[in-house]
């Protein structure tokens, strides 16, 4: 077993013709296995885990309690009103779904582009996707009012209803898109974990762990024939997940863009939303992974180069989002539509101007700092940027949804929206749910895709990127 030093080796150098090492510290297969498995195998996680878990599970309990209160009492406990029929509920939904997209991008799209650096972070990011989509799916589920009838959305032969769902509605496309996304992401995540679960099974020391990991690993033995089919299935799932992730946030954007509301009906929404989702999602990944690599001693697997690459994607998508803002603004003027023009002026100068400028400052202002290599490669700096972007992306959805709804065509229909305490607490509670699931993940499951990392470690002929 090699002695891996904790000294951070800077592999962010740029030497054309020479690929930077993606794993530092002189690791070999054994040390990688030990590094990752020991985290899932230790009997007691550090105290900090318990503290964090306590806080997050309390918030999650609060979340579910508030959901119960909402279902029993009604949507009136939120601040939604006429005309602002969608507010925090849908903002949170889009926010969480968007965050989930980074995981799929890392798993699927970076895989198709042969970006080997993804192997250190993809397990982490995919888990984040599953948990984010779970949080996301709750909000449209509870915002329907009579939640116990939510199954009417499914296309089943409903004799007593004598009707079918309206497939021409983007709200129903959402049902299909989010459910497909949740299931395919879960399958992809689980499939990726099978070899690693087998590793944990084979290292298990207690009967319970043997049984649990044994069942979960489905009897995986690493046979070359199995690997061949596994790799094919992985590539197929990656090839399927790529258009899926594009389609899911496009379908979410259709919720708005197919309408006629000024500020909503604009053709650039699908790619703009997808870029925004990746933007917000990567920010969340960075927010989670920078502390994780520090506290779990994974700096040699999740190196500065990985962080820098993620920040570059953050910068790229942030720039795309900023360009989309500019194009929307320009076309609003160019189109000459008085309502559309007003919608944009209202965003910047109306009663919700504070949210608009927060969005601009966080999304554009903060992300542009990433042009500097120093910011891209310094963990505490990128944490600030990532936090700002997360806030900014939440506000972007708030700006789009609430300002457009509060003031659309007829001034007589204008109304003001204020969130209630329930709105805000539920939003915070959703973070509790997310982090609860996440903390359980880091405790019991392999955080890094060991098999994938090993497969691209240098042993003579392989190359890194």
């Amino acid at each position: 077993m090699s002695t891996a030093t904790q000294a951070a080796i800077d592999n962010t150098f740029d030497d054309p013709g020479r690929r930077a090492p993606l794993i530092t510290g002189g690791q070999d297969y054994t040390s990688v296995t030990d590094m990752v498995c020991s985290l899932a195998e230790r009997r007691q996680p550090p105290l900090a885990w318990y503290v964090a878990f306590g806080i997050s599970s309390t918030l999650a309990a609060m979340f579910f309690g508030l959901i119960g209160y909402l279902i029993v009492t009604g949507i009136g406990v939120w601040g939604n009103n006429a005309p602002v029929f969608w507010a925090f509920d849908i903002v949170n939904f889009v926010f969480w779904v968007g965050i989930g997209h980074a995981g799929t991008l890392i798993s699927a799209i970076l895989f198709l582009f042969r970006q080997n650096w993804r192997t250190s972070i993809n397990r982490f990011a995919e888990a984040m996707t599953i948990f984010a989509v779970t949080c996301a799916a709750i909000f449209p589920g509870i915002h329907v009012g009579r939640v116990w009838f939510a199954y009417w959305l499914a296309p089943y032969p409903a004799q007593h209803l004598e009707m079918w769902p309206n497939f021409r509605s983007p709200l129903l496309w959402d049902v299909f898109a989010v459910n497909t996304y949740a299931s395919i992401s879960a399958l992809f995540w689980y499939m990726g974990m099978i070899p690693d679960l087998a590793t944990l099974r084979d290292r298990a020391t207690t009967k319970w762990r043997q049984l649990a990991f044994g069942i979960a690993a489905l009897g995986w033995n690493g046979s070359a024939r199995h690997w061949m089919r596994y790799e094919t299935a992985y590539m197929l799932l990656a090839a399927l997940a790529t258009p899926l992730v594009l389609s899911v946030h496009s379908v979410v954007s259709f919720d708005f863009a197919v309408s006629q509301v000024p500020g909503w009906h604009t053709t650039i929404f699908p790619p703009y939303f997808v870029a925004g989702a990746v933007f917000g999602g990567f920010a969340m990944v960075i927010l989670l992974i920078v502390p994780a690599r520090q506290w779990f001693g994974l700096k040699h697997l999740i190196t500065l180069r990985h962080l820098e690459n993620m920040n570059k994607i953050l910068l790229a998508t942030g720039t795309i989002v900023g360009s989309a803002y500019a194009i929307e603004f320009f076309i609003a003027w160019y189109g000459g539509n008085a309502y559309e023009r007003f919608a944009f002026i209202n965003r910047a100068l109306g009663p919700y101007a504070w949210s608009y400028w927060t969005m601009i400052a966080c999304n554009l202002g903060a992300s542009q700092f990433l042009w500097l290599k120093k910011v891209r490669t310094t963990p505490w700096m990128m944490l600030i940027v990532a936090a700002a972007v997360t806030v900014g992306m939440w506000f972007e959805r708030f700006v789009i949804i609430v300002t457009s709804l509060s003031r659309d065509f007829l001034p007589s229909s204008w109304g003001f929206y204020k969130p209630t305490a329930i709105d805000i607490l539920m939003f915070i509670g959703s973070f509790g749910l997310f982090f609860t699931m996440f903390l359980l993940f880091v405790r019991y499951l392999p955080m890094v895709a060991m098999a994938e990392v090993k497969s691209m470690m240098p042993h003579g002929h392989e190359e890194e990127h």
Partner: protein
Amino acid sequence: MAEQMSNQSEPETKLVGLLAEFRSPEKLVAAAEQVREEGYRRIDAFTPFPVHGLDEALAIRPTVLPWVVLGAGVSGAVAALAGQWWTNTIDYPFVVSGKPLFSLPANIPVTFEVIILFAGFTAFFGMLVLNGLPRFVQPVFRSQRFRRATADRFFLLVEAADARFSVENTRQLLSAVGAAQVEELHDDASPIRLPSWIGWTLVTLAILALLPPLWIARARVVQSDQPRWHTFIDMDYQPKAKPQTVSTLFADGRADRLPVAGTVARGQLRDDVRLYQGIDPDAQTPQPEPSNPEPPHPEPSNPSEPKPEAAKPADAAASEPAVAWVTEIPLPVTDPMMRRGQQQYNIYCAACHGLAGEGDGLVARRAQELQQGTWLPPTSLHSEPVRLQPVGQLFHTISHGVRKMPPYAAQISVPDRWAIVLYIRALQRTQNAKPEDVPSETWKAMQP
């Protein structure tokens, strides 16, 4: 060839093969190539991650999985499109915001998602099925050293079933090609037998699982006189008295009550008989409410006969008891009232009576077309009996109906009814005007 391993508790084992351990993937690939060259065919390799070059070394053929996934994707597309087409155009067609029933652009997103769903699930489960997973009992798991196959060691298994297998020669070959260790792999030779309790448990569970669907199926066909279960109350039980139900508060046991004697509900006083009934109380001789006696149907057994038209209303009018109808509209007659009357007439009356009152409204014409044999054409408002009717009687007709015409009191407010009466008078004047009715300027302009 039953070699006993010392740690085997089972008396019966059989040799599965030789398991060679290698320290690096390159050595494994080279070894696999060489072993294959020696003529061995039943070999397999086990690695913690996919090793490139191993597929070629072992001559593993590509899998059929992509084709299966493609097929699943195509069937997903067909299923989604067919499903949307059938549900939204055949079984439950409804128009939403002007979209066509089968709107291909709007049906694409769901189709796309279903394609991905079918294809993705097929990829995952297809991979498992093709790999024969889950398979929890395998001979290789009996090897302690094999535990490192998922961590950092690389294994090659040469099965005893191979034609060229021999314990000594194969072991020698494996050591020669660079194996760090070679061990014999034994398996439990006794036939696998599941404990009997598993079978019984499964059967019991299957029977239990059938119960809910059977119960539901029974419930769908059996009728019950019990009220429905209310899992979610949903305002089903409301603390109010519904019409025609039982109430224990009153002696007659009814929830329906008449108004308290001697009271009048707000807005229901209606003591202005002229306004509310069109009857002049001063000129009134005590008369019972006219009852609109219908002349008996002349030929009930001969429905194909054309109906006699004008005779009937005249007869009916003649046989009615005399009522002192008001002859003047009891509201101020203004231009807005006339226009209101026109609007309301066009809404409520024109459907049968026609826009000009001729009795040729759309309903009348359609009914005539259908020739059902029960249709009585509406009276022409220009016929003399109707022209002679006082305004009060017209008002009464609108309020209470006459013959086949239903009462409109519930739909048209009292002032609107008077407005309609005013308009009817105007319509009647149009078909029965005298030169004096024409304004002088217009009359002059009309002269040749």
